[in-house]
């Protein structure tokens, strides 16, 4: 039986993290009342003149440099013409002839041998949002998103499986977030992908006819869509059929894709240089300045955490999963806490609190200074980890200084040997059966007894002392 190879190329659209739109001063804030962030420029009223937002060029340069693109010395904007109600000007300002970056690359995380070539990166404006109104059977248009800056990152068809495509997306997403280019909130549409899929007989070189699925905004859907689309094409070829070059729509609920429009019906966008916007010259001084102010990339952070702070590869990877965790780690260490302590607390207690509260890591309001103080109290044997956990839980809802809180509530660790001895003795007295079990050789009984002492001390007893005292007193029971 013939075997096939799947070929995938991705066009990723990402909304930039700017305050204002790409060509006017309207706000880019998400989720506001419809049409409240509009002006003559983004509404395409006659006579309005677009002016490029400097930060858009800066963020685009950042991404181009981080993906080893060659920078176009003089970059320009073109008009892409089409009639559709989400686009009031009837053209989108984009870049066709001189995109800001070309010929870049991105290395995948789990497929180290696969280097994905980036064909180009270009700047453009987002379109408005259409919703269907079932009452009037008409469409409603909100132009708030119109003119929000986008970068389109076009890969070469270098990906060979759904797993590789998802790796590419995850790697790119992380890079965009750490560079401060985009918040990449997929549920808000700030990262979307057009997925191009074709198949060819294994061992052959020529690319097969491709189909495109547009505007996909969840990793899960993209993975499923690629698997289904490549299988659909293989089945079709095996039955002696032909692949049509067309745009298909992926229906996540039905787990099927449907033909939308074929190449014959494809639009002619009548691209031409936009006469409203002068060219943007990216000289060496500008590029050097962007390069110098480039935020640290996730993989650079990972290796620094391992070398400078002796964290494990696993910890370093987890802590660079999102910019917030990395910055929490760095700031808490900068407040004087021990790196290993901070790492273990963030990956343990902090993330646990997020899971129980069903929230994002950045939703917890504990400040790095307070976390550092809490961790230093554990390190200096002022409180036990158990006490620290309950103080931390309290800190989630209250602005407190953990040191004064511990002092005022008498939560300091009990180190006094006489006090502890008394506590242990009374526990052993009350747990006759466990003592017998231990003496009969059941080690587990000791753990239970230690637990009882800790409980009696409300978590404050010095665990090392308790361990030692329980052992000593149990041995005394052994002697007649």
């Amino acid at each position: 039986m013939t075997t096939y190879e799947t070929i995938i190329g991705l066009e990723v659209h990402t909304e930039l993290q700017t305050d204002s739109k790409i060509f006017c001063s309207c706000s880019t804030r998400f989720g506001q009342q419809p049409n409240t962030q509009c002006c003559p420029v983004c509404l395409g009223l006659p006579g309005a003149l677009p002016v490029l937002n400097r930060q858009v060029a800066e963020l685009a340069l950042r991404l181009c440099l981080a993906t080893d693109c060659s920078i176009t010395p003089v970059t320009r904007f073109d008009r892409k013409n089409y009639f559709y109600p989400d686009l009031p000007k009837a053209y989108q300002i984009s870049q066709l002839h001189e995109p800001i970056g070309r010929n870049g690359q991105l290395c995948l995380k789990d497929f180290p041998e696969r280097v994905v070539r980036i064909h180009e990166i270009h700047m453009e404006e987002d379109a408005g949002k259409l919703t269907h109104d079932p009452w009037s059977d008409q469409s409603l248009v909100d132009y708030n998103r119109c003119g929000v800056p986008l970068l389109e990152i076009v890969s070469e068809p270098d990906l060979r499986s759904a797993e590789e495509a998802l790796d590419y997306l995850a790697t790119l997403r992380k890079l965009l977030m750490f560079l401060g280019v985009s918040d990449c909130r997929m549920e808000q549409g700030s990262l979307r992908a057009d997925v191009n899929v074709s198949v060819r007989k294994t061992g052959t070189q020529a690319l097969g006819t491709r189909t495109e699925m547009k505007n996909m905004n969840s990793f899960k859907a993209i993975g499923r869509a690629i698997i289904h689309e490549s299988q659909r094409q293989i089945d079709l070829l095996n039955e002696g059929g032909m692949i049509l070059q067309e745009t298909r729509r992926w229906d996540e609920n039905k787990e099927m894709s449907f033909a939308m429009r074929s190449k014959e019906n494809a639009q002619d966008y009548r691209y031409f240089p936009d006469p409203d916007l002068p060219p943007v010259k990216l000289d060496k001084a500008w590029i050097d300045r962007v390069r110098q102010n480039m935020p640290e990339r996730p993989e650079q952070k990972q290796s620094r955490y391992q070398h400078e702070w002796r964290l494990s590869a696993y910890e370093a990877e987890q802590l660079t999963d999102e910019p917030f965790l990395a910055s929490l780690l760095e700031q808490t260490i900068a407040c004087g806490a021990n790196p290993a302590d901070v790492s273990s607390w963030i990956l343990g207690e902090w993330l646990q609190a997020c899971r129980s509260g069903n929230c994002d890591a950045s939703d917890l309001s504990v400040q790095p200074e307070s976390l550092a103080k809490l961790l230093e109290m554990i390190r200096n044997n002022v409180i036990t980890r158990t006490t620290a956990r309950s103080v931390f839980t309290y800190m989630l809802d209250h602005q407190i200084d953990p040191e004064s809180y511990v002092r005022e509530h008498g939560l300091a660790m009990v180190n006094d040997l006489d006090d502890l001895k008394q506590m242990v003795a009374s526990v052993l007295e009350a747990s006759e059966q466990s003592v017998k079990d231990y003496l009969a050789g059941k080690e587990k009984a000791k753990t239970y007894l230690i637990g009882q002492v800790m409980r009696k001390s409300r978590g404050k007893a010095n665990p090392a002392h308790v361990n030692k005292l329980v052992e000593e007193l149990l041995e005394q029971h052994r002697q007649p």
Partner: protein
Amino acid sequence: MSEAKNDELVSREVISRIAKLARLDLDDNEQNTYEHDLETILDHFKKINVYDTKQVEPAYHPHDYENKLREDDAKPSRPPQDWLALAKQVKDGCYMVPKAVE
């Protein structure tokens, strides 16, 4: 752009379709005027098409300047009613248009 296509482009049907999409009410006289004007413009391009411009750097922009940029400062927008008032139909703060779902 080929010559044959130029002739098709300025047909009466094209003029009335563009007018409809742009919500322009053109009477017969006006349609004639635009048909004539557009033909003149396209004829002009036909003349330019005679020349071989393969080696010529395109004039991307009419003016000789670059890097006209603004800082990333968001400013409050005017009330949406100012713009919604220009539309033929509105609903719930949105512009209402004929059903457009792909």
